[in-house]
């Protein structure tokens, strides 16, 4: 028996469709899915080899229990019993807020929904967060306040209709290749391309204008561009008048901005700032595409607000080819946010502090009320462990020991816990610290829905049975809830049943069901009714919040600036074929071989200054730690900046990074760290 199973790629937020070739119950290969609207029969390398880790010999197939310093295999029954006892005990002894949970943007909507329900209902705390905190938390807060909806306004497929594409802080060709496809298409159809990035990322090769700004100076650059737009009268006065509010406040800040000052802060020549302003503001339809280069800053929310300002100032929103388009990182990070795997938001971005909305959700779950206080975010959880406030933790499918900033601190925290459960496919660096490890099924072994960037909800189909005794995360959570005597509300025969429940409490998903979602194109939220066709473009007639809100954002320097001891700025990112902490790509031979080890990119000028040789071993240190890695001397990075990909645990960039975070979004400043470098 041989068949192709259409499903969704497990890597980036683009959410391309793939066909898994299943032969005699085994996944044999991955091929593109021609009819899928995102991939259109094309894939990047990660997509083509997305099946490789499924049969990795490292897959966990049995629950593990830590006995002394080592793990012993145990039965599901026993593992769940131990966990249920420990969680109940902790809740009784130190209160529900002494427990914290991490959900996962690699898990389905159903799984995220179920875990946050478990946390809020069975445990009774809002201490649930996930890696969105590290990527687009600032987008959720920033675009939420400016527009009323913290998501990509347009769609990837919409980019070619643009006349000017402004990419800022995104290495699109490496990280969202199928979105980059649309940028290149737009470019070849005559659109202008502006890239703002401290590195010569591959997209920059095709740029009409490459703004090599210093890391952490996004607001200064964007304010400079807006200032120049106002100076030339390029703003869209009718749009500002009819559809927005707060312009006077913004203008007051921009009046204090000077382009000379912007040049001094950003390192981008004044003429280029003006050129960018002209290209962006005078094209018929301009879109902004951004990613971690904007969000991972102590001013992350402000960066996003500035982007929203720029789009509204020129009326580039609500039409095809325009918009503010955050490219979401994980395949389901949009969905896990939608599902309320966040400490302050219930499903559908309903605030836990909004009593009416909270009670409505509680009622749907058959409860009188839900926890009312916002819980702790990812970084705050680690702090709370150090402070002795959080003592028990449950991590579903995340690997904070590599992915979080200042991982020495994270390791110490996790070691300090009374009890840690990790649910994963592999014995990751984090799982090694756990007391109980639960084996989870892979993407090919379960059903559910994923929401890609562009708010596209689509169905993940099961291709094979779970390996060994591993189970899909939704089953594990259900069983755990039942082991903790929460029978009602956790009995689901399939993810489809979970979806039927979640769409009742998630307004954006109200009109969706599996039958509609099963079409190759899925549905884009909001889809409030069963006859609603979904929404490819947001804010067409009016903003979700009514009027778009300008925010007055003055420039603020990053938390750390280079000094005599740490004279360089470290900025982090990813490489094309590796994914985050490499728990999957590191186990995919084809992908791993392309970028097998870590490195640090350094400009030739700096290399000379610090006596660094190309391919030589170097030691990079910051206030928090040091790592050894190999140097790559290249003019890809500007002088004063070094770049390290975040994937490699043996040379982990996050040993160095700073956990200082944005006050609103609580996203850490992974993009700016003061470091020193010397030959090792």
């Amino acid at each position, binding site marked *: 028996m041989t068949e192709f199973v*259409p499903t969704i790629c497990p890597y980036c937020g683009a959410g391309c469709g793939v066909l898994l070739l299943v032969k005699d119950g085994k996944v044999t290969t991955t091929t593109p899915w021609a009819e899928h609207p995102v991939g259109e029969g094309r894939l990047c390398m990660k997509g083509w080899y997305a099946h490789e880790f499924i049969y990795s010999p490292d897959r966990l197939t049995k629950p593990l229990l830590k006995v002394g310093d080592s793990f012993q295999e145990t039965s599901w029954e026993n593992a769940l019993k131990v966990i249920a006892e420990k969680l109940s005990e902790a809740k009784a002894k130190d209160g529900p807020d002494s427990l914290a949970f991490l959900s996962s943007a690699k898990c389905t909507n159903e799984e995220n929904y179920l875990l946050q329900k478990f946390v809020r209902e069975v445990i009774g705390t809002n201490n649930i967060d996930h890696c969105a905190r590290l990527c687009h938390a600032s987008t959720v807060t920033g675009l939420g306040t400016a527009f009323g909806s913290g998501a990509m306004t347009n769609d990837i497929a919409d980019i070619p209709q643009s006349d000017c594409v402004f990419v800022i802080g995104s290495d699109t060709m490496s990280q969202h290749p199928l979105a980059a496809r649309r940028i290149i298409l737009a470019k070849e159809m005559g659109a202008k391309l502006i890239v703002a990035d401290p590195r010569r990322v591959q997209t920059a090769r095709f740029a009409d204008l490459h703004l090599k700004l210093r890391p952490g100076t996004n607001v200064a650059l964007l304010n400079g561009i807006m200032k120049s737009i106002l100076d030339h009268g390029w703003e869209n006065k009718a749009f500002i008048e009819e559809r927005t509010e707060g312009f006077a406040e913004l203008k007051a800040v921009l009046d204090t901005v000077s382009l000379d000052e912007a040049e001094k802060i950003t390192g981008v020549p004044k003429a280029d700032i003006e050129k960018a302003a002209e290209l962006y503001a005078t094209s018929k339809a301009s879109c902004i595409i951004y990613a971690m280069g904007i969000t991972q800053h102590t001013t992350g929310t402000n960066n996003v607000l500035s982007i929203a300002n720029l789009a509204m100032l020129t009326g580039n929103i609500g039409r095809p080819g325009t918009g503010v388009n955050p490219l979401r990182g994980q395949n389901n990070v949009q969905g896990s946010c939608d599902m309320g795997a966040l400490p302050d938001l219930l499903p559908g971005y309903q605030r836990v502090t909004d009593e009416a909305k909270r009670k409505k959700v509680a009622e749907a779950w058959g409860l009188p009320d839900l926890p009312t206080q916002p819980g702790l975010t990812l970084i705050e959880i680690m702090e709370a462990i150090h402070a002795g406030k959080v003592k028990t933790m449950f991590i579903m499918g995340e690997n904070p020991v590599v992915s979080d900033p200042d991982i020495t601190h994270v390791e110490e925290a996790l070691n300090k816990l009374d009890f840690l459960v990790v649910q994963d496919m592999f014995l990751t660096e984090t799982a090694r610290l756990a007391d109980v490890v639960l084996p989870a099924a892979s993407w090919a072994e379960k059903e559910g829905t994923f929401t890609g960037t562009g708010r596209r909800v689509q169905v993940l189909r099961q291709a094979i049975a779970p390996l060994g005794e591993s189970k899909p995360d939704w089953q594990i959570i259900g069983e755990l809830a039942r082991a903790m005597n929460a029978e009602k509300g956790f009995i689901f025969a399939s993810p489809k049943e979970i979806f039927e429940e979640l769409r009742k409490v998630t307004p954006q998903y109200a009109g969706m069901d599996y039958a509609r979602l099963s079409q190759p194109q899925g549905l884009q939220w909001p889809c409030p009714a069963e006859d609603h066709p979904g929404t490819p473009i947001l804010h067409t007639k009016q903003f979700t919040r009514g009027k778009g809100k300008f925010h007055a954002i003055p420039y603020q320097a990053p938390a750390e600036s280079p000094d005599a001891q740490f004279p360089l700025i470290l900025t982090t990112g990813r490489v094309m074929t590796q994914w985050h902490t490499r728990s999957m790509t590191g186990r995919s031979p084809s992908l791993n071989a392309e970028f097998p080890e870590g490195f640090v990119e350094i400009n030739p000028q700096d290399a000379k200054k610090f006596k660094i040789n190309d391919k030589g071993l170097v030691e990079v240190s910051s206030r928090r730690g040091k790592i050894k890695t190999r140097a790559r001397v290249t003019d890809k990075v500007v002088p004063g900046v070094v770049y390290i990909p975040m994937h490699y645990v043996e040379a982990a960039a996050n040993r160095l990074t700073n956990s200082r975070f944005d006050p609103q979004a609580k996203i850490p400043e992974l993009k700016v760290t003061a470091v020193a470098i010397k030959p090792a």
Partner: protein
Amino acid sequence: MTKCNEIVQDIVRSMLRAKLVDEVVAFGRGINESDIVPLFITDEKDAEKIVTISYYPCSLAKLVALYGDRNKKIGLVLRPCDARSLVELAKRQQVNLANIYSIGIECYGVVRAGSNSHQVYIFPDTVQMDGETKPLAEDVLAPNCRRCEYMVPTMTDVAVRLLPDGGCLVDANTEKGQAVLEAASIAVTDMPALDLTALKERAARWKEKDFGELKKMAAKDRLHYWLAQWEKCIKCYGCRNACPICYCKECYLEPEKQIVKNEALPPEALFHVGRLLHVGDSCTDCGQCEAACPMGIPVSKLYHMLYEELSPLFDYESGFDLATLPPVSTISDKDLTKTGVTLD
């Protein structure tokens, strides 16, 4: 167009019923009418999913070479270019043609992946889209199809011709083909010869257009054109993975071979040229490479251009005669009579 679909489905059912084959590989309906996916059919009742519309999202010959069971008898419903690829794969010992029953469908071009492919049938000068007949606008065709002059599946066991009125003609090219038609109780009819003049003229015109503008360039400009195209590459390996002729299990484009450097984006030009060296002499211009390229590199144009140069040089037409081997892995008797360092 249901009648032709029915006939092809009938043939497939009969092949399975008569146990001529254990499995049939063909394109069929997936999730909906326009979702066309490869099917591996062992149960005759699944034959009803098979479609014959002008869309061909991947190479079935390659699928069979990679994942088909060599000891099984396999039926294949394919287009002429893919049938040629099948012959090339057989030359390279990747498929056992003796075990394959091929049903070729006459093809005047496929529609590009990504456009609406719902029920499109292309004929020499008309196109039917969702039941509506219109004059053929050549730009709906995939670029390689516009250059194609091999519309007739002469290299398959059974040849099927779709007719614009919904009808269908069937012929057997081989004894195996006759057995298939016998099993399906279809009388072997000699198909009326096609006048391919207009289609060959179309191919020549598009070749002139596609290749001509490159050939007219100064060499250096042409070099920079290709280098610029290759700079768009994101090294997805899609062209290699989609190419039916790329069969090596150990591929020398891969990092461990250290011929093409890893850890670099875009990959060095050798990534493209290396593959061109390997398959350029045998390219069947099926266009799968270009359809798989996320960055819109005109891959098939390059391969076809080289093939057109090599074909007369080596007197080699790829994909027809099983007995002629790929030109650079063989030498001819004529070679032995020539002295000097060139083949002239």
